[in-house]
């Protein structure tokens, strides 16, 4: 095929971007069969990129000092040259917004458009986690609502009170997520409309749990059995923010709404943390395919293609564990290698692949298989199913088991050999399992009959207990919201209590 060059040299202008986008789109649709949200491409400066970093990449976000802190920190390291800026940021919304840095060369813009506007975009639209947990249509409006709402609260209730509530909510953010899908898909637009209505409704509704005047002997709080009480409260509950929002006895309605906003945002980012490898793998695979095709069609010159290959190689570089640049698995490297490996298994399998992947080996339809993988897996399940022995050998993976009780040292559990493949794979997939990454903390009970103190439990896995200083601080925040004592016990698998924390509420300006 012959094609006209999309651009010459490194310079670009807006018509060039349009041409690049159209060329990428042609390949994405006809050859890769991608299904994407409409694209919106925004060109920004380095300073704006730095800004975006600090509001977790979102174009609008409420104001909070912690974002300023991150900004100051990142600005300092950027100025010192310790940190380069990303070439792009992409937002899971509809239309899908990609930010491109103005100083990228034309080749880089092509790479970034292929990577973000098609790779990530397809993943956002099709992966089951995103479909289940995020509402791409509503997120920008919801953020706008959140921002305005919080600004109004600051006017009405004072900045200090709002800040304290947000501080507390942020501390609990990692435990403000529903991990099991609810009955309905999230709809943030409706969420926003209902906010006002809900507040009025909740103020007027009768709350059986916190009633202090007993109406009859049978239903009185004191006689509720422990089981019934827990059932009414929805206990045990691992979504701490949700629990506080619904049941904290003395929160003002606006505080509940703040918790809700923080909770929704945490939920929005939840799928991203579970799909780093897949998401980057998908985007990298897509940009690699598109760039190669553009080059083959003559739309990209040899020089530009070499420039692309150079940055692509940097992106997918995986340093060894003893390299000074090593900081865990590079999601781009692992993800891209796995996608390419799947392509190989589907098109040119060997005997080992037929044994390990009977379902897809030699199936021939690369894109069909990949699209299915992209839609239905997350990092943990993706790795546990599709990491091939060949890749384990390629990365020379090995599994270490570090038991503090073992004085001799750290044990090499398994390596990339016949005996070890399955164990290495299982161990690696566990590293990406949110169930193991986040501490398992639940609300187990509330002492309704007595002093209303809230009881939490941390189920300790493999001896990893909570950091003492941080836990005390988080519990302090929790107690401030709950306004009565809060206790947390750490329990190991055998039910033995390892440690106990108690926090007393401080007098919050907001509550008074």
């Amino acid at each position: 095929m012959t094609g006209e060059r999309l651009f010459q040299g490194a310079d670009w202008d807006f018509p060039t971007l349009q041409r690049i986008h159209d060329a990428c789109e042609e390949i994405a649709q006809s050859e890769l069969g991608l299904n994407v949200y409409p694209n919106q491409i925004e060109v920004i400066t380095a300073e704006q990129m730095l800004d975006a970093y600090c509001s977790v990449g979102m174009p609008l976000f409420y104001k909070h000092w912690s974002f300023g802190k991150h900004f100051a920190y990142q600005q300092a390291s950027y100025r010192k040259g310790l940190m380069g800026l990303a070439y792009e940021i992409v937002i899971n919304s509809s239309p899908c917004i990609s930010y491109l840095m103005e100083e990228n060369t034309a080749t880089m813009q092509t790479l970034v458009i292929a990577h973000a506007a098609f790779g990530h975009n397809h993943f956002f639209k099709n992966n089951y986690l995103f479909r289940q947990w995020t509402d791409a249509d509503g997120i920008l409006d919801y953020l706008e609502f959140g921002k305005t709402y919080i600004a109004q609260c600051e006017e009405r209730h004072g900045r200090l009170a709002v800040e304290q509530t947000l501080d507390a909510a942020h501390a609990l953010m990692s435990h403000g997520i529903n991990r099991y899908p609810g009955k309905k898909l999230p709809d943030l637009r409706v969420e926003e409309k209902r906010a006002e209505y809900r507040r009025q409704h909740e103020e007027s509704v009768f709350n059986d749990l916190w009633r202090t005047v007993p109406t009859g002997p049978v239903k009185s709080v004191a006689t509720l059995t422990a089981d019934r009480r827990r059932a009414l409260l929805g206990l045990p509950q691992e979504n701490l923010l949700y629990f506080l929002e619904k049941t904290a006895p003395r929160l003002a309605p606006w505080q509940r709404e703040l918790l809700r906003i923080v909770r929704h945002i945490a939920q929005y980012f939840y799928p991203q943390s579970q799909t780093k490898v897949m998401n980057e793998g998908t985007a990298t695979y897509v940009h690699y395919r598109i760039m190669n095709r553009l080059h083959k069609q003559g739309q990209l010159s040899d020089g530009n293609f070499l420039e692309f290959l150079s940055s692509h190689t940097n992106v997918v570089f995986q340093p060894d564990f003893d390299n000074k640049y090593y900081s865990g698995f590079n999601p781009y490297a692992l993800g891209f290698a796995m996608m390419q490996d799947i392509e190989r298994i589907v098109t040119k399998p060997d005997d080992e692949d037929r044994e390990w992947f009977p379902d897809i080996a030699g199936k021939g339809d690369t894109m069909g298989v990949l699209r299915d993988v992209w839609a239905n897996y997350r990092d943990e399940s993706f790795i546990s199913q599709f990491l091939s022995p060949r890749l384990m050998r390629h990365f020379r993976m090995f599994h270490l088991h570090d038991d503090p009780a073992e004085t001799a040292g750290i044990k090499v559990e398994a390596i990339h050999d016949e005996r070890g493949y399955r164990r290495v794979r299982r161990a690696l997939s566990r590293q990406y399992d949110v169930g193991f990454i986040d501490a398992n903390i639940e609300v187990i009970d509330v002492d309704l009959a007595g002093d209303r103190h809230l009881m939490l439990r941390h189920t300790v896995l493999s001896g990893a207990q909570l950091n003492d200083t941080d836990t005390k601080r988080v519990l302090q925040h929790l107690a401030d919201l709950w306004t009565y004592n809060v206790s947390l016990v750490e329990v190991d698998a055998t039910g033995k209590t390892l440690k106990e924390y108690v926090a007393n509420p401080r007098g919050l300006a907001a509550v008074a």
Partner: protein
Amino acid sequence: MVSIHIVDRRLNPGSKSLENRQRFLRRAKALVQQAVKKSSHERDIKDVLEGGEVSIPLDGMDEPRFRREGGTRDMVLPGNKKFIEGDMLPRSGGGGGKAGGAGEGDSEDAFRFVLSREEFVDLFLDDLELPDLAKRKLAEVESEGIRRAGYATSGSPANISIPRTVSRAMARRVALRRPKPEEIAALEAELLICGDEARRAELIAEIAALKAKAKRIPFIDPIDIRYRRFETTPKPIAQAVMFCLMDVSGSMTEHMKDLAKRFYTLLYVFLKRRYRHVEIVFIRHTDRAEEVDEDTFFHGPASGGTLVSSALQEMHEIVRSRFRPADWNIYAAQASDGDNSTSDGEVAGRLLTEKILPVSQFFAYLEVGQDAGLTFEMPDSSLWTLYERLRLAGAPLSMRKVCERSEIFPVFHDLFQRRVRQERAP
């Protein structure tokens, strides 16, 4: 075909994070202020205005989360070279096995970031407990004056430059050969006395043509008009020199020197806002005085007795040789713990009143004390007594005793008041 929007956001106002940053600074105010204090202590006086990196402890600025640590850990790493299953790797990093896992830089003890110049000066001044009004005075941009700056083709009618407009009109008239009135008058005069019919017709035609031409080429055309152009410029302000005099004999402690440095810095900040060009001269003295650089001034060791007159003499010499009072505004600030040998009083007093004060805009004497609450119980020092006497006799001296940083400002207050009086007097 999916539609696509390409938006150029580059022109959008940047620094969306500004408000977040301000909130952060406000929250960390006490910590940042300490850092600024420390940082300004380490800096040279001239660098105080530069802003720059400060480092604050993370305490109170942290964002706690439930974090787990310890326990048995499993990790999968890439790049195996020689391990086989069942190997035991020594723990102290020997086998390199520690590299992975929980190495998230979790506890940075200090948090480093960059303050802009304004933020830095603001916090610096805040630390000195300046009243807001004074702070504004310090922070205000220098006043602007208006200066002629050539001519412009547009402007207000009041600014029309008549000479320039007329001369341009004349040039145009000459260039386009506009008939002169005398020329037409001469022809008309000839017409009156002319009897020849043919010549008359010729003259009439010529006069008409000239008149028409004169009408086509106006005397003053809008394109001739020029306006006087004015430019706002910083007021032409003279240069200033600031003399820092300090007693460096053994009795001056680090604390006292720090107080003195604070004062000098403040004075420098102030002068820098008022004058385009500020020079600083450091004179230190024991029983003899010498001009030194800043580092020696604050940190160099020296020992000896105390003769204030030596420093005043040195200053006088320097003024005479390098800073003509007609060209320079001379500011001087003297810091001392008040010791002076009794015999020196007379000489110092004469030098001050006869040589120094007449040429100085401002002379401040700062008596630095050891700690709060101690000085006022002590009898006035010899130097204080001397200056007090001079002041009562009418010498324009500002003098204060300072034991703590927060007291430095009142001396400054004197400076402002004095300037207000001066401006009103003439």
